[in-house]
């Protein structure tokens, strides 16, 4: 008789512990700092003008300005002939790894689709780097790398486990010239796709940072798409190795 009561208690413990344990150990949807706060620039940046090279102007107000007309600063000039700037692919990223969650993926340079959204490599094993923005290792701005969380035809993608990443985890990006740029995760957030703050996530100015984007949140079968984007932001640590 007592044996049965013990069995009842044991079964109840399992029935409660299983979902509770899952709930307690599942990766949090957001962690660390807000992803849009990293590298944010206070005011919107003004367009910059430059010729083929870019020494800056040094305005010096003239002393002999006439009273009624504005003073005229001195300006510098340089040749305006077209220049061939040559290839610049040496700093393109070629692979990405996040050891803590066993992520390793080849990186392709990508642009935008006809509808203006970012191109994601067709193969879910590869991730895309937004080639119009700065490459990883740049002095400023967000290097954006995005990949499929999964696809109907190919199954789980390179970024499938991205939601398990935690603050402090290391992210390594290897460049075409062999250098590796090392980052450390500082924030993770799940944001509704329709309101994704792309202007801030893709900002080409502000502190240097790496922004990883994939899909997340509930799946909407009618749209064959997830409702949210999972965004992870990481800051560079040390120098390029």
């Amino acid at each position, binding site marked *: 008789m007592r044996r049965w009561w013990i069995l009842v208690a044991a*079964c109840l413990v399992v*029935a409660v512990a299983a979902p509770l344990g899952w709930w307690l150990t599942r990766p949090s949807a957001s962690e660390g700092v807000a992803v849009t706060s990293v590298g944010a620039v206070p005011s919107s940046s003004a367009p910059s003008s430059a010729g083929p090279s870019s020494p800056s102007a040094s305005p010096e107000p003239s002393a002999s300005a006439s009273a009624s007309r*504005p003073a005229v600063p001195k300006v510098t000039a340089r040749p305006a002939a077209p220049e061939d700037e040559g290839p610049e692919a040496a700093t393109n990223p070629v692979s990405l790894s996040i050891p803590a969650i066993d992520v390793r993926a080849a990186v392709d340079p990508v642009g935008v689709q006809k509808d203006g959204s970012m191109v994601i490599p067709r193969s879910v094993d590869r991730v895309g780097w937004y080639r119009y923005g700065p490459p990883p290792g740049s002095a400023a701005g967000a290097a954006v790398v995005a990949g499929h*969380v999964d696809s109907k035809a190919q199954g789980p993608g390179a970024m499938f486990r991205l939601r398990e990443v935690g603050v402090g985890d290391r992210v390594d990006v290897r460049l075409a010239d062999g250098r590796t740029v090392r980052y450390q995760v500082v924030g993770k957030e799940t944001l509704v796709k329709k309101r994704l703050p792309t202007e801030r996530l893709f900002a080409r100015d502000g502190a240097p940072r790496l922004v990883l984007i994939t*899909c997340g949140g509930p799946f909407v079968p009618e749209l064959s*798409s997830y409702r949210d984007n999972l965004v992870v932001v990481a800051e560079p640590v040390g120098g390029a190795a």
Partner: protein
Amino acid sequence: MRPLRVLAATGAVALGLGLAAAAPSSAAGTSDVSVLHGVPGLTVDVYANGDPLLTDFKPGTLTDPVKLPEGTYDLAVFPAGEDPDGTPAIKADDVAVPSGANITIVAHLTADGTPVLTPFVNDTSRIKPGETRLTVRHTAAAPAVDVRAGGTPVFEGLENPKEAKADIPAAKVSADVVLAGTDTVAIGPADLDLKEGTNTIVYAWGSAEDKNLALAVQTISGLHSAPGGVPSGTGGLLEDGLPMPLVAVTVVALAGAAFAGRRAVLATRRG
């Protein structure tokens, strides 16, 4: 090289079109102003309101943009080192600089070879992601031209001192300038890296008669916009709720508890 003709006052040159209406002196705004020298064969000094703005300014060179306070300027161009109290080689009085514009003032030849100053307002509006803005300006002593990219005419029948522009996919192109409606190459080809989010302004300058036609390039970057979204999952494999194996374990445990409970109650009654 023909002698540089002295041009009489060209009268008021309005900049920025409607923007330039009667600027009060209290306004604190500025505009970014660049100057391009497109008159072949003459190094010059440029004066604005009687002050030297640029000295030893050589043909084919472009200034860095400088912030000029909103207001009215008298511009005068003299051969380098010449007394600015004399008669200028080119002049433009009462040039109104509005607030918040991006302007390039070009010293160049008209179609018939007369040196003039022409202000152009540069388009610094946002460009769609993935695209670039190509602006071409005819500032050469030459007839109407077509501008071609990769051999295909992009802008046709462009006349001095007009401009044409378009937003196109960012790419490296080989551009040349041909006499309008012909395959007679007047300038180029030149390789242009039309970068995403950048307005690349190409000037045709010089003189066809003197066989010194050339291209000058000015770029204005930072006009990009971000992509509209990141579509990165179609599988639906990501489980947002309790995973199926755990659901099964929970169900089995509950069933086990019910079964054991029934047996325990029965055993209690019998006992």
